């Protein structure tokens, strides 16, 4: 069953796209991340133009994260104040990110830059997660004391000015780090076509020291709004949001996410994190290989829009 995508201007197998969306949905429900970091490279792999893949990712993330936010909201597991700080900074970041994206598109470096971003961030986050979960599993096996030097690492943050109280997170810290986190994730989201959950979660936990129970809800809250904004910006600025592609993806995605959530409840935290780390590192390695290995075709073509 083929379907013609009006913006990407090519026809794809609808079932393949729904399947991809579903698969990534399962992963996103399982790990509580948007899954953009997997879906965007996969879409590019099956021939969707990178610009379309990145911007169509945004509404897909909105859909799969929205149900999550609703669930967390009902459980009051969203730090609204922190969410808005992250959101405000995120929107500014997203705005700049879309501008950078347009500029890169003109230069013809979108593909390279997006891939490079992926390799760097997936490598960093995947490596960190693998390290953390392996040591957590080891500690559990040894039955030793859980010692964390996270607090020591966080000391410099407490020296920053403009302290604000975040009641739900039980934090009294400077607003500068949350603003910086929200801002950089806004930029990355627009450029890489990801929600940024896989970067935001570790950042909120390890850098800010937010309690785990509000982290996921707050991060989803921020992601949904930033991605809504990114969708509109990409639609207006680049005209690269493909509604048909988005619909197919999220049909599979929202269903997959629900299955993933059920599946996730049956696995232990550290195992889950180790699995996710392995997945992230695999994607990272595959993309890194693309950058390093000699490509079979050196040339590429792109249409120059009239005007």
């Amino acid at each position, binding site marked *: 069953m083929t379907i013609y995508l009006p913006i990407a201007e090519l*026809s794809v197998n609808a079932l393949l796209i729904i399947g991809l969306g579903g698969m990534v949905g399962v992963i996103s429900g399982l790990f509580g991340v948007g899954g953009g970091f997997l879906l965007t490279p996969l879409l590019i792999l099956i021939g969707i133009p990178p610009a379309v893949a990145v911007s169509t990712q945004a509404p897909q993330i909105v859909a799969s994260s929205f149900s999550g936010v609703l669930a967390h909201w009902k459980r009051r597991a969203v730090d609204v104040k922190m969410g808005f700080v992250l959101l405000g900074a995120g929107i500014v970041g997203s705005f700049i990110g879309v501008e950078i994206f347009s500029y890169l598109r003109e230069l*013809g470096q979108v593909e390279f830059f997006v891939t490079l971003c992926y390799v760097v961030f997936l490598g960093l986050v995947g490596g960190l997660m693998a390290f953390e979960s392996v040591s957590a599993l080891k500690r559990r096996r040894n039955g030793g004391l859980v010692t964390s030097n996270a607090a020591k690492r966080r000391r410099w943050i407490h020296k920053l000015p403009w302290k604000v109280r975040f009641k739900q997170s039980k934090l009294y810290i400077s607003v500068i780090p949350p603003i910086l986190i929200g801002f950089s994730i806004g930029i990355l989201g627009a450029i890489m076509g990801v929600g940024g959950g896989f970067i935001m979660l570790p950042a909120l936990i390890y850098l800010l020291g937010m309690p785990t129970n509000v982290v996921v809800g707050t991060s989803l809250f921020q992601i949904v709004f930033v991605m809504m904004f990114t969708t509109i910006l990409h639609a207006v600025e680049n005209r690269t949001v493909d509604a048909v592609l988005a619909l197919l993806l999220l049909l599979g995605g929202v269903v997959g996410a629900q299955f993933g959530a059920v599946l996730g409840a049956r696995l232990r935290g550290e195992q889950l994190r180790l699995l996710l780390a392995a997945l992230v590192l695999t994607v990272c390695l595959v993309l890194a290989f693309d950058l390093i290995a*000699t490509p079979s075709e050196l040339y590429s073509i792109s249409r120059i829009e009239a005007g």
Partner: protein
Amino acid sequence: MNALSKRWRVSWASAALCLWACLSAGLSHAQGADGPMTPFGPAGIPLEERILTGSAQDQVAITATFSGSELFVYGAIARNRFLAVGENSPEIIIVVRGPSSPIMVRKKDRIGGLWMNNEAVRIAAAPSYYAVASTKPLPEILEELDDFTYRISIDRAVLIAGVPFSAENPANFREALIRLKRQSGLYRNTPFGVTLKGGTLYQARFRMPANIIEGDYQVRVFLVRDGRVRDQARIELPVRKEGVERVLYAAAQETPFLYGLLTLLTALFCGWGASELFRLLRR
């Protein structure tokens, strides 16, 4: 429904053509165009030939389920007299071209160990789709000069001129463009793709892949003798997105904000709907 009626029209047209072809082949045989009997003298009247053309479709619609299309081009050669002994049939070349646009061709280089786009050449105009079919391979039937004048072969259709190049060897970039377009089925060259029956009736089929873009396509038919173009005919073939595709594309271009907003609302609704649905199912 639309596709079905189109298929009917195509098969209807080809049936009519077959009948026509049989009749005329029979006629020409009976009157001995190839044989010794020639009712009209060859010498007196100089041969004049005109080319007539038609296509089974007057437009191509890109609908949601579009998976490529086949274009059927047919026609006939009109003459002021029958061909005499020793006079060969002319050669026919048919060119289908899609809308042209400037194209950037980029070449990757290894920079600091990583492969990234480096040199770029702007091709002034390259057709989005280009198909050439002929009764014989082009070099055998067409002179360079006429190929150049009428811009017939793919090499003549892709224009590189008019821009300063930063690249060392811009010709390579043009070749790369043609190679890539060929690989995606957008540029095609089929020598022997045109069949000429009884020296008067011709037909050709063109495959238009699913990744064609919309715009005004043009079918040009050339009648060639002794390497020179003697007559040409053309028909316009609009390729348009239709139905949902049309609406969405127009919305994305003309009212991008509303389009983005509607896409968002759909996304929100689906996300909410799925979670509600699963909550109901789990009960």
